[in-house]
């Protein structure tokens, strides 16, 4: 018996070896999967079972200076249908009927939105009101999902479209203040980590980790909705009356730099926004800060301010107007080809004489002239905080291609490019005792951490108070010293200046294309508002005095009355 046990069959040994080898292989494989690759598969499992959602806080409101909302957020739902679930014809039929009645669509609309695909989710309705969305959720229709979203709502309609801007589908600002103030209006998104099932749905009472979102802030602007609407209406009427291509109106408080209205045309309408239409892209920018133009005779105010400030001239200083000034080989004539003889500086502004401006610029010299151009803020952005703001173009005496004729033409506002906002900011310094103020449009940001208020910011004393007072008197003489001036308004003393500039084209200037403008402030004794009216390429009439000045005369009384500014007791001039 022991001899039999000692002889073990080789077949048995082989079988045992194979079994051992397989066992080692299985154990090794298990060790590789569960120990060595543990991290990889754990991450895959987590990825499979963990879902992440971004939680956006309600977007902040944009308000006017009095707290009236210009842009609000409404909660909405986007309704999706799972094509996979709706492959069941009965489910699809019931769902179609139910959704059609709630959404106010036809069953055919629902079916066509599904498309021909058999996978994925189909968007049936976007931006559905919260109540309707809740109703659909409560109906519990198979395969129907509702995703929460927001929609921007503008109670004042298309008011200040270019200024406010719009948001995209991801609730991020894309243009205007919605984009410039994205950090304030958008808050900080939060996240939700949750366990999900194989269909991607959250597992009830499963593991959930929430990072709360930071609430957004409301932004209160310096814009007044009434003044903004009045400005937009006046601008639209002026463009239509004069068959113009566009224009800008800006209303500002000269003492603080607060912008009360900013209207530009052409522009887009918030109620008819179509982001898929590329031709509308040109309309999204705020032309008051992005577009450059040659200001024309309004620039004579800067030229005269510089000369008065340096004591080179007074309002009664005279020169001999022969109708033509020769500079650098060029002959410069008055806009009306007039010859006025002995003319005072006040009359230079009243009659808007190019030869007078050239004479003053020769007194100043290029160094002084361009120093004052910079002191009034030209050649650099105002810092208003709106994206796309242009710095303007000033070719001074240090530029390689500058010539003496540039000094002459710049003195009456040609050959120099500015933005409308730069122009009104500069003239506002005259109304503000010579102090140049930084324009601003955001008055307050009201957030969860408190309220931040913008304080008026003086930039520099561009001219002395005395000079500012002298120029104000001269500007008043422009409006009230010239019979039939269309900028006069009943009950108030106004200071102002017209401007008419040819539009530059390659090789020179277009003889029949002009930009007309008028800048005025009132009351002269204590300016409460300054208005710039700029009308581009009017066809019916082509002078600042006949196109832009009447717009000021129509708009200014409304603004002064609205602001509760009492009339000047001694203002006896009659409005036109």
């Amino acid at each position, binding site marked *: 018996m022991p001899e039999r046990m000692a002889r073990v069959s080789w077949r048995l040994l082989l079988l045992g070896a194979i079994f051992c080898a397989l066992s080692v292989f299985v154990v090794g494989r298990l060790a590789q999967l569960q120990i060595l690759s543990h991290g990889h598969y754990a991450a895959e499992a987590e990825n499979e079972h963990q879902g992440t959602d971004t939680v956006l806080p*309600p977007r902040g*409101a944009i*308000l006017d200076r*009095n*707290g*009236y*909302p210009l842009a*609000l*957020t*409404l*909660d909405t739902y986007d309704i999706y249908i799972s094509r996979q679930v709706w492959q069941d014809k009965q489910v699809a039929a019931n769902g179609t009927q139910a959704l059609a009645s709630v959404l106010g669509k036809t069953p055919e609309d629902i079916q066509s939105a599904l498309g021909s695909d058999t996978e994925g989710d189909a968007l049936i309705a976007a931006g559905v*009101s*919260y*109540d309707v969305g*809740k109703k659909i959720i409560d109906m519990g229709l198979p395969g129907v999902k509702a995703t929460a979203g927001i929609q921007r*709502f503008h*109670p*004042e*309609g298309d*008011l200040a479209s270019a200024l406010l801007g719009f948001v995209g589908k991801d609730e991020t600002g894309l243009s205007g203040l919605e984009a410039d103030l994205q950090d304030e209006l958008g808050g900080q998104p939060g996240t939700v980590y949750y366990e999900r099932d194989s269909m991607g749905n959250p597992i009830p*009472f499963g593991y959930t980790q929430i990072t709360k979102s930071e609430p957004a802030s*409301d932004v*209160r602007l310096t814009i007044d*909705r*009434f003044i903004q*609407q009045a400005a937009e209406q006046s601008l639209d009427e002026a463009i239509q009356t004069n068959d113009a291509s566009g224009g800008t109106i800006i209303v500002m408080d000269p003492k603080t730099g607060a912008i009360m209205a900013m209207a530009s045309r052409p522009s887009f309408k918030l109620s008819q926004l179509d982001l898929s239409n590329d031709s509308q892209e040109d309309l999204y920018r705020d032309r008051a800060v992005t577009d450059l133009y040659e200001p024309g005779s309004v620039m004579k105010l800067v030229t005269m301010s510089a000369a008065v400030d340096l004591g080179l001239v007074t309002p009664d200083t005279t020169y001999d107007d022969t109708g033509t000034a020769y500079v650098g080989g060029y002959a410069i004539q008055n806009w009306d080809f007039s010859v006025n003889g002995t003319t005072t500086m006040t009359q230079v502004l009243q009659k808007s004489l190019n030869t007078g401006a050239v004479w003053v610029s020769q007194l100043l010299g290029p160094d002084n002239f361009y120093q004052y151009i910079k002191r009034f803020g030209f050649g650099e952005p105002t810092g208003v905080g709106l994206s796309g703001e242009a710095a303007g173009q000033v070719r001074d005496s240090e530029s390689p291609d500058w010539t003496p004729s540039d000094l002459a033409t710049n003195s009456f506002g040609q050959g120099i490019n500015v933005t409308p906002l730069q122009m009104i900011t500069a003239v506002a310094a005259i109304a503000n005792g010579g102090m140049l103020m930084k324009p601003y449009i955001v008055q*307050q940001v*009201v957030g969860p951490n408190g*309220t931040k208020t913008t304080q008026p910011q003086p930039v520099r004393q561009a001219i002395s108070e005395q000079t500012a007072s002298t120029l104000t008197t001269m500007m008043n003489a422009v409006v009230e010293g010239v019979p039939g001036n269309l900028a006069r308004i*009943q*009950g108030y003393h106004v200071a102002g200046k017209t401007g008419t500039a040819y539009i530059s084209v390659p090789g020179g200037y277009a003889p029949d294309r002009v930009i007309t403008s008028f800048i005025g402030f009132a009351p002269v004794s204590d300016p409460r508002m300054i208005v710039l009216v700029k009308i581009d390429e009017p066809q019916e009439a082509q002078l600042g005095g006949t196109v832009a000045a009447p717009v000021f005369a129509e708009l200014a*009384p409304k603004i002064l*009355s609205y602001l509760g500014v*009492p*009339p000047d007791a001694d203002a006896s001039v009659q409005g036109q």
Partner: protein
Amino acid sequence: MSALDRLIARPLPRPLPRITGVRPALLIAFLVVASVGLLQVFQISNATTNDYTLQQLEQEQFDKQAEVHQLEAEVSLLTSIDRIDQEARGRLGMVPATSTMTLEVHKQPPAEQLVPLRFITTSSTAKVESRSWWQKLLGMVPLAG
């Protein structure tokens, strides 16, 4: 004698049986484990109920927030310039002014609150301090210093 024998022979009361052995220990252990298990079940059930209530309340809060936004939008629409213009012309029969007369009236205008309170900045809203009863009582007692 036989009565005395009977008296003497009456057996003593049998003592109570002592609890010993495996079965009783198992019973006690089972009771302990069951209690622990029940406690855990109770806690989980409680947590689940609270979680469900919390979810309901969060949803309710979300619904209320959406309702507030909707109401804010409605108020804003009712106070919009276009609507005021429509009401003035349509319902009240007003027309744009053709001439302006200025009168000085020395009286404070009425307080306006035409916008949702949320949009009135804190600086313009009067803060009302509310003191508890014990703070008011303490205020009546003259304190040294």
